[in-house]
């Protein structure tokens, strides 16, 4: 990819949230941070921005690496562990779903890994399948497991940082249940259910300020909606959204395929009101996927399918 610093002008535009978005983004050269002899993917920033959690091939295992590409180390090699793992708010623990085999059959476990001590805690529960991935409760005193029969809450040991939400009743967590979105509020209680458009939902992400939800519809487009179900914005085609820390912008990937092979994918940016959509990578020969916006808002991490490496691309406006 021959990306260099360039600017795109986005016309300020009132839409949905009625916030005009300054639109002059510039992008730096993406730099690989992982070695070329490993396949690592799906970066997830720690809340303090000092570490990225990475998944191995087929989400086997979790690795950690500094944003500068230093100090690559493996947390676990558990099957499935790298799939959408969740950082604790203090950036010291990772919550994830792993898979264990009993003969040819398998079941899920919820596990917490300490990135500082290396300790591992397997959460006891009686079921077999965890839908999606385990999620921290707002005060991180428990975890939520979405199962076929509903959401289970299981208490865990750990720090309990005070809620930072403007309202204890505002959404703290979002689950996709297939054809609807399901909230948990900051008190850890059910916050409601939304089905703003028809279809099956994937990869729902709550904005950092809790004011908006981004989600994709299978075979359809990417949307943003308020937790109230109001102000639905169709962002066009896009997948796997990640919010900017200011909750005003989103990054997402836009892959193309022929039904057998992923032909191309680029990372796009778009304002939450649908304006300013722009291709941030513009590569013809690379397949950039799984963007993750850094907590400081100054870079986006993503993986590249062909090389199996993770890149960080600076951006500014």
């Amino acid at each position, binding site marked *: 990819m021959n990306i260099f610093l360039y600017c795109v002008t986005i016309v300020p535009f009132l839409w949905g949230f009625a916030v005009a978005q300054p639109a002059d983004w510039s992008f730096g050269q993406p730099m690989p941070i992982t070695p070329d002899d490993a396949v690592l993917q799906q970066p997830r920033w720690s809340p303090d921005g000092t570490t990225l959690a990475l998944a191995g091939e087929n*989400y086997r295992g979790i690795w950690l690496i500094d944003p500068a590409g230093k100090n690559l180390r493996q947390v676990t090699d558990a099957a499935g562990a790298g799939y959408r793992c969740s950082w604790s708010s203090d950036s010291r623990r990772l919550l994830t779903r792993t898979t264990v085999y009993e003969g040819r059959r398998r079941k899920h476990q919820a596990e917490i890994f300490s990135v500082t001590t290396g300790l591992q805690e397997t959460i006891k529960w009686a079921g*077999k399948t965890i839908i999606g991935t385990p999620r921290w409760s707002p005060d991180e005193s428990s975890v939520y497991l979405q199962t076929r029969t509903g959401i289970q809450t299981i208490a865990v040991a750990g720090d309990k940082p005070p809620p930072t939400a403007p309202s204890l009743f505002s959404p703290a967590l979002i689950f996709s249940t297939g054809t609807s979105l399901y909230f948990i509020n900051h008190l850890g209680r059910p916050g409601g259910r939304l089905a703003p458009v028809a279809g099956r939902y994937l990869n729902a992400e709550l904005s950092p300020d809790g004011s908006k939800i981004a989600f994709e519809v299978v075979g359809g487009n990417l949307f943003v909606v308020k937790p109230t179900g109001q102000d639905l914005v169709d962002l066009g085609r896009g997948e796997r959204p990640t919010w900017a820390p200011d909750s005003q912008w989103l990054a997402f990937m836009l892959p193309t395929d022929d039904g057998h092979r992923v032909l191309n994918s680029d990372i796009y940016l778009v304002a939450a009101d649908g304006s300013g959509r722009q291709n941030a990578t513009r590569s013809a020969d690379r397949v950039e996927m799984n963007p993750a916006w850094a907590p400081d808002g100054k870079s986006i991490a993503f993986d590249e399918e062909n090389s199996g490496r993770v890149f960080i691309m600076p951006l500014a406006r």
Partner: protein
Amino acid sequence: MKLNSLTITAITASAILATISGTALAQDLSGLSFCLDPGHGAGTPNQGPTGLREADINLEVALRLKEFMKAAKADSVLLTRLDDTTNPSLSQRESIANQFGVDWFHSVHHNAFDGGDRFTLLLYEEKRDPADRCPNGSIRGTGAAEWPGQTDVTGPLMASRIFQALRTSNSIDRLDWTFYGGCNGGFNLGVLNDLQMPGELSEATFHDHPDEENKMRNPDFLKLEARAIFMTFLDFFDAGEMATGALSGIIKAAANNEPLSGVTVTLSPSNQTYQTDSNGNGLYVFHDLAPGSYTVTAVAPGFDPATRTLQVQGHSFAAADLTLAASGPPFVEATVPAQNATEVDVYESLAFRFSREMNRESVENAFTLGPSAAGHFIWVSDKIVLVEPDTRLDFDTEYTSRIAATATDQSGRFLDGNGDGTGGDSFTIDFMTKTADNSIPVVMDFFPVRRDTGVFERDVFEVTFNKPLDPATVNTSNIVLAPNSTEQIPAVLDFPGAATRVTIIPQKALSRGASYFLTLRPGISLADGSELGRIFSWRFTTRSSNVSITTVDDFEAPELAWGNPSASPFSMGFDPDSTEFELTPGLALSGGGAGTLSYVFTENIGVIQSDFVGGGQPHRLDAASEIGCYVYGHASGNQFRLLVQDSDGVEMLPALTDSRLGWTLYRHRLQGAAIEAGDGGNGQLDGAEFSVSGFRWTRAGKASGALTIDDIFIVESGLPVSVDDDQVAAFHPSGFALYQNYPNPFNPETKISFRLAPQVAGTPVSLQIFDLQGRLVRDLTVANARPGLNQVVWDSRDARDQKAASGVYVYRLRAGNSTQTKKLILLK
């Protein structure tokens, strides 16, 4: 797939329901969840030749598969799309499986290429090693499955199951990266490479194959595919077996082998019925049959019923195809020539087209032609037969062709010759051939005849015309011997004087067991310029027996290896001063030499004999042994014969009367020929070996003239005994061969090389030098010859260590049952 886009096959629903209750009694997929991925979707055409979309087929199979799985109590069965209104990206399809955390992923596809393939393909993810790169920098595959013990188990199992269910041409399973080209552009399938559970992709068959597309329009056929995939998961997860089996088949018309629509298929004892649909596939399917013996009966208007009994087992697929023969007796639909035709070409074949497939042997036995003519049958199909004359019919003749009532179809029904709907009467046509047009060249006879088989590979061929031809038009542009349209066999055309006969003499042996064409082009003309005006071309085939040919004398040596006729005590009644056998140029078949006898008989009882002194080495005598040579005669009426020596004396082979001008092949099998006793002989060939001892020319006609002979050869069975070196090298690269000495001529040393087959190495190997009188000069026997190439040096000294005289010598190699000889020349 939109169900309403398919033709729903009529099934007796109650019968199916009656057996469906027996399904899945032992199946248990509880505790397992699956994600089924109907490949492609809205906006992806991927259509077969008549427009059936792959996306629809994939969805139909996935829906049927889900039904099977839910019936087997699977915890969850997710589909990545539920209809044809969307086309999720590959990453979304993976996301569905990953988010839900299913146990297994399966992507349903159907293949397409060039419309001619119909095999089953299973693909699963190949593990790649980022530390190992291809030259272009891409990550190399490891040759192992990403999910060892899982997808590399289900892959071949599922491929085999689908192959059995759909009866495709073949089944293969492959790792995706390697299958798609490896370092030359290979890739992991986008729908598999980011799964966090095992998964595979099936391409059950080819939707662009017309027959397969027709079958895939039938939902019952697609359900077979779903059943096969389902059974694979039962097998893999040890989740029980299907208590029932499935039975399918194709009903075709015997007349054209095309699938039949509207056939009612009845199953006994269950009494279920199925009607083949209108999609031209002839397909019937019975799902969910209890194990047992079943009789399938197919009935359709205008056809005789057909039945077949077979066993159906649980957890398996059974198949029974049936062919329906049209009802009523067979009859002749059309002929060439037509009844009472006139001006029929004498070279053309008769043709008969029957109303249905016939028993070929019964038709051939029932056929007669009057006046009779030699010919042969050519079956274009079981319904069409040609009767081709070996050469031609007679000109200006009224013929009657008859097929007797004994001719039957393949069901044994007798011919309805008069077309009254009742079998058991003969069919007759009369026709009249045209009058010969003597104003142009007319082919009267030829050899080999049409479609002749077993033609000797060194034979000479002939074509006889009605009148003498213009010699200028008798050339290899107008008379062509060729194995195909791009090659031509070099040949000498012998056309002495103003004869009407052309002899074609190939300048090399034809390949054994091969087909050739002899073609006459229109440029052949009579002396007045009247041209042949049409192309004649016919095919013949050389024999394919396992024999070898040894040239005893090709008359290419600088010295004649035959004795003077005057020296033979058996020569009599001739003028020795005017009689001589010598090497001559000009009439040779190959190379530059032949042997010509100039003779003058002085008595009515005259015999001229020449003894072969050029190496009367023995040859193995067996049932295949033949001897022959080419003889150029002058229609003298005298008789030529070859003489051979066996264990008790000289035997005389049958005589050839010199009745024509030009080359003739003289060739006789040794055992069974009409042999006369010669000097010391007993009139039959005895013992295990024989050798050529001479030829005899006996007066029965003209008193003087000439006779030329060339290329005396022996044909033997089994291992090659003596063939051209090139042939040995080409066809027996590791076999037995004796090579020409080098240098040659030589003085004082020459090297003799030979090759031994492994089976004769280790046995005594004899290499001996003889003079032309057959006397042993030197024995160079090799004690330790090894398989492959060996080399011996002869220092031109004889057994007494004296320098041998200059001249021609024969060297002979014997190993095991193989013998080969060649000549060498010592010069001083």
